[in-house]
């Protein structure tokens, strides 16, 4: 259907009394029909970015272009952007039908058109039996659907979703996640989705934008973000359990962890002190390597997470759920893949010998 390209150039938001900007020099281009997820810890400016796009927050400097037109000063009501809020923001004095029809009524659509569109969306979201109810008589999941429905009926070229699933319980969240994706596949609306939930980010996004302190850390596909994190922050922010990080010394392409040689780099990198990051699934259990004293194991069905100590380092590795290990026992491990971060915590993108 209709989808729109969004370009953001040098976008900055600074509140009057704040020392540092909430968002600084944000640049990105969102393609037509793309599903973009913005992730980051709370206070990183992800919601602010979204609100600037929606037009409910003013832009301090930079440009926001929708379909090539600068819309910095276009009021929210004229941007034709549908937004889903974390609190759902349903109008409590209106029925489900009226909630969904509100945007259309304002735009003075014909009664039959409104009726058709609302019924179509209600059908899609399974809300037909509830059209006459008020929001207070609905469950969380139903309210969430109404909020979505309100966005869908508008037929806007852009959807903005601000943590729309965070108020739902885990099961419902998984279900709604799939429904949202199906919806996006059928509507092909350009979507920007803000979340702090990394599962949502990894599973839903065409591309992920990782924000921290108002600065873009990395923009890329979920795989790029996971496999090739631009820096230490991105590496540790996405992935569960977290990426293991530890300081190492590099001498002639050999990685030493507390005097133990744990890996040979394929790339020629200056010797010195670095940090490495190893994903829990990137450890190999071997005959001789890092001796790890097992402190704790967690069986998650298919996977087993092993927590262990080596000197003062805590390491987590993930292995097959069928294997068993005794707590207090010692296993030897070696990384089969790692990230090497320099002093500025930037990734140097190395490969191991034989990788």
């Amino acid at each position, binding site marked *: 259907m209709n989808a729109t390209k969004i370009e953001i150039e040098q976008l900055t938001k600074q509140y009057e009394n704040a020392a540092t900007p909430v968002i600084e020099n944000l640049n990105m281009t969102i393609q037509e029909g793309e599903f973009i997820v913005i992730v980051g810890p709370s206070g990183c400016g992800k919601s602010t970015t979204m609100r600037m796009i929606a037009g409910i927050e003013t832009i301090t400097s930079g440009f926001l272009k929708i379909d090539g037109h600068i819309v910095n000063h276009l009021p929210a009501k004229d941007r034709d952007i*549908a937004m889903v*809020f974390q609190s759902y923001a349903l109008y409590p004095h209106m029925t489900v039908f009226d909630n969904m029809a509100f*945007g259309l009524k304002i735009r003075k659509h014909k009664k039959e058109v409104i009726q058709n569109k609302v019924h179509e969306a209600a059908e899609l979201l399974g809300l037909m039996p509830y059209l006459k109810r008020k929001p207070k008589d609905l469950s969380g999941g139903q309210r969430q659907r109404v909020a979505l429905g309100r966005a869908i009926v508008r037929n806007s070229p852009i959807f903005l979703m601000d943590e729309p699933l965070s108020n739902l319980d885990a099961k419902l969240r998984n279900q709604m996640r799939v429904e949202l994706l199906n919806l996006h596949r059928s509507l092909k609306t350009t979507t920007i989705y803000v979340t702090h939930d990394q599962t949502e980010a990894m599973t839903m996004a065409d591309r992920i934008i990782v924000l921290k302190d108002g600065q873009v850390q990395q923009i890329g596909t979920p795989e790029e973000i996971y496999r090739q994190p631009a820096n230490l922050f991105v590496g540790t922010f996405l992935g569960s359990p977290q990426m293991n990080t530890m300081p190492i010394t590099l001498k002639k392409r050999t990685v030493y962890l507390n005097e133990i040689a744990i890996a040979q780099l394929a790339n020629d990198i200056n010797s010195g002190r670095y940090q490495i990051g190893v994903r829990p699934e990137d450890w190999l259990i071997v005959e001789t390597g890092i001796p790890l004293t097992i402190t704790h194991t967690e069986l998650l069905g298919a996977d087993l997470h092993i927590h262990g100590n080596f000197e003062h380092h805590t390491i987590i590795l993930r292995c097959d759920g069928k294997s068993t290990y005794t707590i207090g026992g010692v296993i030897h491990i070696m990384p089969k893949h790692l990230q090497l971060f320099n002093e500025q915590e930037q990734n140097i993108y190395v490969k191991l010998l034989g990788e």
Partner: protein
Amino acid sequence: MKQFVLKSMPRTIIVMLLSVVMIFPLIWMLLSALKTADEIFAIPLTWLPAIPQWDNFANALKLAPFGLYIWNSIFTAIIIVFFQVLFAAMLAYALTQFTFKGKKLLFQSILLTYMLPAAATYVPSYVIISKMGLLDSLAGIIISNSISVFAIFILRQAFMQIPTELLDAARSDGASDFVILTKIMMPMSKSTIFTVVLISFVQMYNNYLWPSLIVKSEENFLITVGLNRFFTTQGTFAEQWPLIMAANVMTVAPLLLLFLILQKWFMKGISDNGLKG
């Protein structure tokens, strides 16, 4: 349970006594409206009229157009309340939704005018009304009363209770300020607005001093002014007292009726000051 009853006994008795003191004049007025003059001044007091004098009402109406007075009062009160709510809603919207220089100062100065004794504003207001050529007209009464600081304050409080996300949602749904005010904020503050309407209406209906300064000709009299005039002209004659009482009953009747119908809302208005959203 028994202990509780015993403990609350003195309080209950005091409240009951106070209620009797409060309601006695009203009952006395109702009864007196049906008595003859002799019965009103009889010693010892007679409670019930020997024969209810229903003619008192008709006779009172013959002496002064109370119907017109009551109509004037209700008419002006309704229009005044309409404008008060309209202006208060718009001002409260600006005070809660817009950011502009001097917003705080504006609100503070609005509150400041509330602190001024009303009598202090009579002279300047009178001069303004007179320069506008609105002396001795209902329009003068309406215009001079059409802004209520109380309504502004209460509505502002109610509007502040509405979650910002809801208004953001309305904005991205394409709603203009006017639509947000009339379709979202006012319906959501329904109970507060209703309370304001009731309180303001009663206040305006009972308003005496200021209207009595403005209106001079009888056809513009509000009921409060008309009643006072009736009392001062007829009150010297003892035999007219039943008629005065009848006029009083007619004056109070609309409010009593309103109170009986909307009792629940009056109580609510008093108990939560209309601050609930």
